[in-house]
């Protein structure tokens, strides 16, 4: 059997990573929107529930953007901005009154890790975009008719074609004289 070998491919590694980050965004966003009290309790950030929910909606929107866009780069950069906002918000809980500082530390380390992944992804996407072949200037197709004479001269050139019975239109070819209801069916 011939050994299978890849000669060329269309997708960069970064595309798959971006997709994964998109789904991660949606998942995290759902948790933030649906369970803000649990999160604020765990991190000692009580009173910030509305903020967490707003961040959740931001995550969901960014996730959909990443999954829906042809080029997810801007959305990944959006995620990086969001990560910075998350870290800043979490940092407000770093005080002696917070008894959940350990949890907060773990959360901040996780966000920092994800931020690093986001930056890697954005950089890799930019590199993949740079590697794409350069486009030529806009081409002029205004003479590409495919017809031997002008379209007006060719209009109806295939009038020898007979539309099959199963594809005939319901719309009468030409309006008829005014008729009484029912007369058309007898015509």
């Amino acid at each position, binding site marked *: *059997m*011939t*050994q*299978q*070998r*890849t*000669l*060329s*491919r*269309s*997708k960069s590694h970064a*595309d*798959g990573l971006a*997709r994964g980050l*998109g789904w991660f965004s*949606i998942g995290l966003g759902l948790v933030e929107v649906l369970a803000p009290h649990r999160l604020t309790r765990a991190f000692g950030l009580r009173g910030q529930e509305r903020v967490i929910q707003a961040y959740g909606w931001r995550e969901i929107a960014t996730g*959909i953007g990443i*999954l*829906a866009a*042809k080029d997810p780069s801007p959305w990944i950069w959006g995620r990086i901005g969001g990560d910075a906002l998350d870290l800043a918000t979490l940092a407000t809980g770093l005080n002696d009154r917070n008894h959940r500082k350990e949890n907060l530390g773990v959360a901040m380390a996780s966000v920092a890790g994800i931020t690093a992944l986001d930056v890697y992804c954005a950089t890799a996407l930019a590199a993949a975009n740079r590697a*794409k*072949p350069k*486009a*030529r200037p*806009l*081409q*002029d*197709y*205004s*003479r*590409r*008719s*495919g*017809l*031997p004479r*002008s*379209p*007006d001269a*060719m*209009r*109806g*050139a*295939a*009038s020898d*074609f007979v*539309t*099959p019975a*199963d*594809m*005939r*239109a*319901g*719309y009468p*070819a*030409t309006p008829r004289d005014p008729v009484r209801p029912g007369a058309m069916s007898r015509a």
Partner: protein
Amino acid sequence: MKALRWQGKHDIRCETVPDPQIEDARDAIIKVTSCAICGSDLHLYNNFIPGMKHGDIMGHEAMGEVVEVGKETKKLKVGDRVVIPFTITCGQCEQCRRGNFSVCETTNRNKAIADKVFGHTTAGLFGYTHLTGGYPGGQAEYLRVPFADTTHVKVPKTLSDEQLLFLSDIFPTGWQGAVQCDIQPTDTVAIWGCGPVGQFAIRSAVLLGAKQVIAIDRVPERLAMAKAGGAITINFESESVIERLNELTGGKGPEKCIDCVGLEAHVSMNHPDTILDRAKQAVMLESDRPHVLREMIYVCRPAGTISIPGVYGGLLDKIPFGAAMNKGLTFRMGQTHVNRWTDDLLRRIEEGQIDPSFVITHTVKLEDGPAYYETFRDKQDSCIKVVLKP
């Protein structure tokens, strides 16, 4: 042999795979001399149509030379030059005998899956998901053609590959899109989408004698090519399609509307429904973006016809069916019954009525195919149609 294989969303790879073999006595093997990337291949590339498996060979527009035939293949011999229709047909079932080749009852070898998904099976297709048989496609050096006696169009050696290749799909598809409208000399035909199928629909409507053909798109090169083919053009990014169509038809709307766009309508801030569709698509709440269908139903003249050669894959939201019902619109749609039209279209090419090669903008090696999927999808480099040379 070399072949372009689907390895996931946005992941087409040119890989070496085993050569195809005769698997059934009715098969033939062809050495592919030219093949093309179709707009509907992009639905697979973008992973909007379910049923692909990693390693599937892409492609349903191919032609070449017969290099081997099965024992029961009678109408082909080694050396024959053939175009291969994308629909695999038995020629004997009730649907084939009615000319409805794209819903052949025999050739889908995954009939049970298709029965479950569609209610009843449709024909087997080359390189187009396991829902339609999972047959390896023609973006390869060699192609196995099942039911070879009926799944081919013999073509003369006097014409070039470029003139003949599109008999495999896009020319008959554009033609059927127009034929389904039963065009009359008084008709205005509006065509959404100036990609390859749209270009052929425009020329078909002109040849079939439409009074006025209007083409709708946003890409300047595509609009220029549409105009060259005889269409009045509307750029939907700078004009209101509905206002312009009403203007051009005395306020009554076009009698005939053709959707050559299908499930991936352009997403634009000017059309908020497309943004919602795209968001729902991204999280699998909707499979298709049917903006064009909505617009056609809205603007079509009452008692008019809507023809849909553009491919749709699954579940569509917010279709104004009330408007369609109350206006008494006729809908005609379906995959193309390729063999029903090819004899006639081949004659028209031979007679010089049309030269289908006008649509080719890029000819590249098969190995360069993966990169050109993206170029074609993004309409970069003025790309309208890519032909691949194995």
